[in-house]
């Protein structure tokens, strides 16, 4: 079974982000980049499916500038068989829909039976690409999945998705798109052998023209980034515990009107 996993390279959560001179993007100097954590769940699940079935191919795909190769390489180190890098200035301001269109074109070329994505990328937290990709492909889609099982014929997948109050289980005919939620699995660390072996694996550069995609303006554009308004300074309530708690309850009720 061929599985395609979409990943995004994002700044590490702990990294300080600063607004760039254009006021619309972030200053990328000094940023530590990682594979978005939800995407690691997707990679892990794809590898587990392959291992369980004893055969198959896992292809990692990512869209972004040259630095994205590092993220793809770490997916190869985890065990993906090869990678596709959508690397074209035409996509530099791609919104979720433009990204989904590029990915859909790759999916059509590669014809996998399953596409696994992370629930959302932790940089812009849009959480839309998976659904939009499914829509463009006309495939069924399950969001926020906590477990999945592929039937022995490789014709369908049973997936449990997380919703408010419980899990909903569906059967989806393949091909299908699944969005991984935290809790689906525990991603492996790349082994050193995996890391050393990754350099022998292929990362194919793909331009928009290779996919027959014409450049089009994004449907959603960033007008500007702004820093968070500072929170008013807080107050440490002093005194022994009973006194401090009494004062806290009073302040919450009378000053903050929070109760």
């Amino acid at each position, binding site marked *: 079974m061929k599985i395609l996993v979409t990943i995004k390279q994002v700044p590490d959560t702990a990294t300080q982000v600063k607004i760039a001179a254009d006021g619309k993007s972030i200053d990328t100097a000094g940023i530590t980049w990682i594979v978005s954590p939800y995407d690691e769940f997707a990679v892990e699940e794809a590898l587990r499916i392959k291992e369980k079935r004893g055969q198959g191919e896992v292809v990692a795909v990512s869209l972004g500038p040259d630095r994205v190769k*590092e993220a793809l390489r*770490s997916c190869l180190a985890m065990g993906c068989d090869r990678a596709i890098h959508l690397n074209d200035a035409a996509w530099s301001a791609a919104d979720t829909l433009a990204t989904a269109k590029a990915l859909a074109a790759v999916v059509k070329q590669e014809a996998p039976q399953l596409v696994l994505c992370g629930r959302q990328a932790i940089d812009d937290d849009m959480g839309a690409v998976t659904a939009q990709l499914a829509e463009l492909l006309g495939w069924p889609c399950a969001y926020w999945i906590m477990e999945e099982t592929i039937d022995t014929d490789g014709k369908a997948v049973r997936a449990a998705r997380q919703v408010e109050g419980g899990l909903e289980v569906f059967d989806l005919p393949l091909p299908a798109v699944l969005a991984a939620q935290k809790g689906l699995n525990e991603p492996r*660390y790349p*082994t*050193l052998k995996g*890391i*050393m072996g990754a350099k022998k694996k292929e990362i194919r550069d793909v331009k928009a023209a290779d996919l027959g995609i014409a450049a089009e303006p994004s449907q959603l554009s960033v007008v500007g980034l702004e820093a968070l308004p500072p929170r008013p300074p807080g107050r440490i309530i002093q005194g022994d515990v009973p006194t401090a708690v009494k004062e806290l309850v009073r302040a919450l009720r009378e000053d903050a009107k929070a109760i």
Partner: protein
Amino acid sequence: MTFDLTSEQQLIQATAREFAETQIRPIAAEIDRDSRFPHETVKRMGELGLMGMVIPERWGGSGAGAQAYVVALEEIARVCASHAVVMSVNNSLYGDPIARFGTDAQRERFLTPVASGHAHGCFALTEPQAGSDATNQATLAVRDGDHYVLNGCKRFVTTGREASFALVFCQTDRAKGHRGITAFVVEKGTRGFTVGKTEDKLGIRASDTAELLFDDCRVPVQSRIGDEGQGFKIAMTAIDGGRVGIAAQAIGIATGAYERSVAYARERRAFGVIIGEHQMVQWMLADMAVAIDGARLLTRKAAALKDAGRPYRTAAAMAKLFAAETAMKVTTDAIQVHGGYGFIKEYEVERAFRDAKITQLYEGTSQIQKLVVARHLLRGDHDGV
């Protein structure tokens, strides 16, 4: 010349850091307190490939090389020096000499399980009367048909209790002095081979340091590594690599303490400002940073020489000396930056301070490193310094 790590080395670094932070950090203080060998995390380090980094893939290792090894070892030591020393012994003191001097049959039997993380090896050179003076071996191996009979006692053997294989150095020809020393691998369970007492230590408390006892222990000839009389050379070659590893361990210990000090200096307030505003604190932090970076550069240079197959004995001694002294100084100052809190176990610089001390002692004390450096310099042989 570039100071950038390759993308593989960067990935290895990131993996080691992530592993150390998420898997080792939560237990580091507790295993130190209880002197408990961390079987679970050490096993996982083996599965990741951290126990065979300088060993070729053919023999179960990952063939990542010395540079990647020091980078990863530093990351592990930054969080826990005990895990780091287990890694260092398996790689440098046990794995590397067997990869280098063993036959294919010996590598298959003695190396593959260790390099792939399924078993541990240890390095038994030191004896009660032979520490820095390693040539003065009293453990004897006497040939008897297709066996050798070993008698004697080894002391301060890191991972001695947990290891399945011991690389043991014995005197086979007393008359020849250190040219009469021979190396053997002795497997746990061999009759006449027992583990004596385990030491209660100041630092690296979660690693085990044990005494190995040999009492008419019969070891087959096939377990002899190299030729008779080649043992001292094998030991010194292993220790060269080991010193680079210990240098990395020392840098890791220092880095952990330094990072905590910087964080503390940014948060802790005294006299109305954060203490980082005080020049005396800035002074200490700057000294720490300079020394750590200097030690790191020396260590990476030694590793680069090793990877290139060039002589690196002096470079290794320099790196180990400077890194060990740095670790001791940095952890001492780290406690100073923390004030009274630094003296308390809850703030982890206390553990770093205790762990730092061993780096000035094992695999050649700082004084021995100076001897090595000076002797080679006087001979005009200084590894391209």
